[in-house]
C-alpha cells in the first residue's frame, strides 16, 4: 500500500549487508526523489541559520566539551540524576539490555492495567523494538508524531532519525491515511493530511492514561528530562496521562540545567534548521496537580558502557540525534535510511549500529561511507565520524583475519597476491607483462577497457578502465638511461 515495493529490515542482526540492502532503493526512483527533496530542503534551512550564528564554532566547541565531560564522568552524573529525579517523585529503573528494558516497561504497564499506550517519537524505543513486543503482550502502542503515524499506519519503517517518514511523499501519505482512517475524500494537501492526523489522535490524547517518551536530555543537577518537538504531541503525552514512562540511553545525561543554553541552540539549528523548535518541555519528577502523577525513567545501557570504555569510539556517545550528519552525507542522500538495516541510519548509524551490536552484526556499515568528512564538519558536538569509521573498519578486518573462510575470499586472495608481487621487482615486472598481454584482449581501439569478465566485471559494470600502456615506466626509463641524452 505504501508505495515502496519491498520491506526493509531494520534489525541489524537480520538485515542484509549494506551493498545488498541498497539495491532495492537504487532501483526505486520515487523513493530517491523523495529523500533527495527532503534532504535538500533541510540542508538549505540549516545552512542559512548556521550562517547567521556568529558564534557557531564556539557553540560546537562548548557542545562537544559538555558532552565529552558528561561521558568522562558518566557514573557520577547518572547517580546524581537518579537521586534528584527520585527526590522529585520519579522512579528510576536500570536496564542492562533491550530485553530488560522491555520487561521493565511491560511490568509498569501491567501495574497500570494498560491496554493502550500513547508514544512520543523515540528512536530508543525503536532500538529495543518495543512496539512489536508490546503488541505481542496485548498492549496497543499509538505513535503520535505525524511521521511516526504515517509509518505505523502504512506499515513502513523509519528512514531518518528526525523526519522518519521523509521517504514517503504526500500522495503516499494520502493513500495510507485514506485507507487506515477510512476517509474517502481526503486530499493530498499536507494541510488536510495533518488535520486528519490531528482528528485521529485527539481522542487518544484525551483518554489513554499511559504514555511513553524518549529523552533529548537528562539533567543531572535537577533530575529533569527535556523533550524537544514541533507538533505538540509531545506536550500532550507529557501532560494528559496519569503515568509517564521515559526511556533514555544512559549517555543522554548533561550536568546542569544551564547546559541547555548550548544544547538547545545547536540541536534545533542542526536538526530542522530552526532557531528554536516550536516546543521544548522540561520537567522534574512529579508536580502535584500538573501532568502525570506517576513517573518512571528507564535508563538503558544496551552496549553503551562498552562503547564508553574505548578511546576512539567513546565520542559516538556524544551524539544528540540531530541527524545533521545524514542530511549532509552524499551516501545517505543517494540511499536513504533503509539500506543501513538499523533504526540509526546515515554516518552516525554507520558507527553506532555496529558498536551497539558489539561488532557482531552490521560490519558492512563502516564501509558505507566515502570518508569525505562532511558529517564531521556539521556535527554540533564535533564527533569525528570518519575517525571512528576507520577504527571500526580496522576492527572488521581484524575479525576476518582469523576466519578460515578468508582463503576462499577473492578480495583476501587478491590482496595477498598483491602483497607478494609488490615486494619483489621481478614478480612485479612479470605481472605487468602478463597484465599487458592479458588485458590487450579486452582493450578497445580507443585505449579503454569497457567490459571485463568475471570479478573484473563488477568494476566495469559502472565505469571504464584505462588500458595498460604498451611500455611500462621502468622499462622506458631504463631504455632512456641506456640511450643517453
Amino acid at each position: 500500500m505504501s508505495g515502496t515495493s519491498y520491506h526493509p529490515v531494520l534489525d541489524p542482526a537480520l538485515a542484509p549487508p549494506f551493498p545488498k540492502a541498497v539495491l532495492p532503493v537504487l532501483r526505486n526512483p520515487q523513493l530517491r526523489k523523495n529523500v533527495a527533496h527532503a534532504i535538500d530542503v533541510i540542508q538549505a534551512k540549516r545552512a542559512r541559520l548556521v550562517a547567521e550564528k556568529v558564534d557557531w564554532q564556539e557553540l560546537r566547541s562548548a557542545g562537544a566539551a559538555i558532552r565529552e565531560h558528561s561521558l568522562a564522568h558518566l557514573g557520577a552524573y547518572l547517580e546524581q540524576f537518579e537521586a534528584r529525579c527520585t527526590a522529585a517523585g520519579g522512579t528510576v529503573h536500570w536496564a542492562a539490555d533491550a530485553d530488560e528494558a522491555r520487561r521493565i516497561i511491560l511490568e509498569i504497564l501491567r501495574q497500570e492495567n494498560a491496554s493502550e499506550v500513547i508514544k512520543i517519537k523515540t528512536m530508543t524505543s525503536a532500538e529495543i523494538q518495543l512496539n512489536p513486543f508490546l503488541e505481542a503482550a496485548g498492549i496497543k502502542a499509538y505513535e503520535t508524531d505525524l511521521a511516526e503515524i504515517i509509518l505505523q499506519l502504512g506499515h513502513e519503517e523509519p528512514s531518518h532519525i528526525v523526519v522518519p517518514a521523509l521517504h514517503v511523499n504526500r500522495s503516499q501519505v494520502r493513500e495510507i491515511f485514506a485507507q487506515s482512517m477510512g476517509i474517502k475524500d481526503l486530499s493530498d494537501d499536507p494541510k488536510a493530511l495533518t488535520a486528519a492526523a490531528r482528528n485521529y489522535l485527539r481522542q487518544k490524547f484525551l483518554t489513554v492514561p499511559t504514555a511513553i517518551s524518549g529523552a533529548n536530555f537528562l539533567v543531572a543537577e535537577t533530575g529533569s528530562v527535556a523533550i524537544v518537538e514541533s507538533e505538540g504531541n509531545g506536550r500532550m503525552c507529557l501532560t494528559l496521562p496519569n503515568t509517564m514512562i521515559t526511556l533514555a540511553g544512559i549517555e543522554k545525561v548533561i550536568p546542569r540545567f544551564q547546559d541547555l543554553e548550548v544544547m538547545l541552540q545547536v540541536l534545533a539549528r542542526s536538526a530542522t534548521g530552526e532557531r528554536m523548535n516550536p516546543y521544548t518541555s522540561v520537567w522534574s519528577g512529579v508536580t502535584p496537580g500538573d501532568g502525570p502523577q506517576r513517573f518512571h525513567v528507564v535508563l538503558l545501557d544496551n552496549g553503551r558502557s562498552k562503547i564508553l570504555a574505548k578511546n576512539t569510539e567513546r565520542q559516538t556517545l556524544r551524539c544528540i540525534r540531530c541527524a545533521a550528519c545524514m542530511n549532509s552525507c552524499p551516501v545517505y542522500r543517494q540511499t536513504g535510511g533503509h539500506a543501513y538495516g538499523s533504526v540509526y541510519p546515515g554516518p552516525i548509524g554507520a558507527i553506532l549500529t555496529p558498536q551497539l551490536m558489539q561488532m557482531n552484526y552490521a560490519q558492512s556499515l563502516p564501509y558505507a561511507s566515502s570518508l569525505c568528512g562532511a558529517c564531521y564538519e556539521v556535527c554540533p558536538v564535533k564527533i569525528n565520524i570518519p575517525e571512528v569509521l576507520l577504527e571500526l573498519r580496522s576492527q572488521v578486518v581484524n575479525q576476518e583475519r582469523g576466519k578460515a573462510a578468508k582463503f576462499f575470499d577473492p578480495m583476501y586472495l587478491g590482496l595477498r597476491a598483491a602483497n607478494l608481487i609488490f615486494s619483489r621487482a621481478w614478480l612485479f615486472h612479470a605481472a605487468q607483462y602478463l597484465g599487458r598481454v592479458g588485458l590487450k584482449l579486452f582493450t578497445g581501439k580507443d585505449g579503454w577497457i569497457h567490459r571485463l569478465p568475471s570479478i573484473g566485471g563488477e568494476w566495469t559494470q559502472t565505469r571504464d578502465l584505462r588500458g595498460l600502456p604498451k611500455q611500462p615506466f621502468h622499462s622506458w626509463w631504463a631504455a632512456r638511461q641506456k640511450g643517453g641524452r
Partner: protein
Amino acid sequence: MKVPSDSRARILQQVHAATQKTENPGDLASTYSNLPRTYVRAGRLSVAERIALMIERLREYDADVVETTSDKLDLAIAAQLRASGRHVFVAAEGLPAAWMAGGFEWKIDRNLSAAEIETCEGVVTGSFGGIADSGTIVLHHSAQEGRRIVSLLPDWHLCILYASRVVETLPEYFARCEQPPVLATYISGPSATADIEMTRIKGVHGPRFLNVIVVDDLGAELNTRQQGKEEISQGKST
C-alpha cells in the same frame, strides 16, 4: 513494585570502570567550570532593538503580536478576545481579574478536567519571559502562567509578555533563572510540522493560533524604537 535487578550496580560498575582514566571524581565541579564557553552570552542590542527583534521573530512564526502599555493592557486583552471571534476562555488560575474582560465566558482553572478545558475555545496566560533571538516564549507554569494543560488544549493562546522580561539571547535567559524551574515550556511559534515533504504546516496538536501582547513596562526606553528597527534591518543586509 520495582523489578528486583542487579542491573543498576552492574551498569554503574561498568560505567565507572570504563571512565576510570577520565574520571575526576574529587573535583567534578571545578572540571565542569573549566569547560570552554566562548560563545555569545550577552546580547548586543539596545532595549528597543531587542523588543523589535522579539516581535519580528514572533511574526515570522505567524504569531499575532500587538503592543501596548501597562495602563492599557486590560483594553488590549479585551480587544484581542473580541477579534478572536471566540467566546469561551480558560484562565490560568492566577490570572489577574482585570485581564478577564467582561462579555466572555471564563473558566478559571482550579483543577479543571481535561474534558472541561477541551470545551474552551481559547486561553489567556502570563509568561515568565521571552527570548528575542529565537522568538521564544518561556512558561515556568506559575499560577499566572497556568498549568501545562491550559496552554495546550485550547486552539487559541493569548500570552501576555512584559518587555522587561524579554532577553536577547538564550544564555541570558538561563542567567536570569535563579533556580532551575521544576516545569518549563519553551514555545517558539504555534505548533507545526514539516513531516510531509518538508512543507511547514501550522497547527498540529498544540494551539494553532498564538497571540502575544507585548507590554511596554520599560517606559521611555522604548521610544527609540523606530530607530532600532532601522539599525536591525541594516545589520541584516550587510
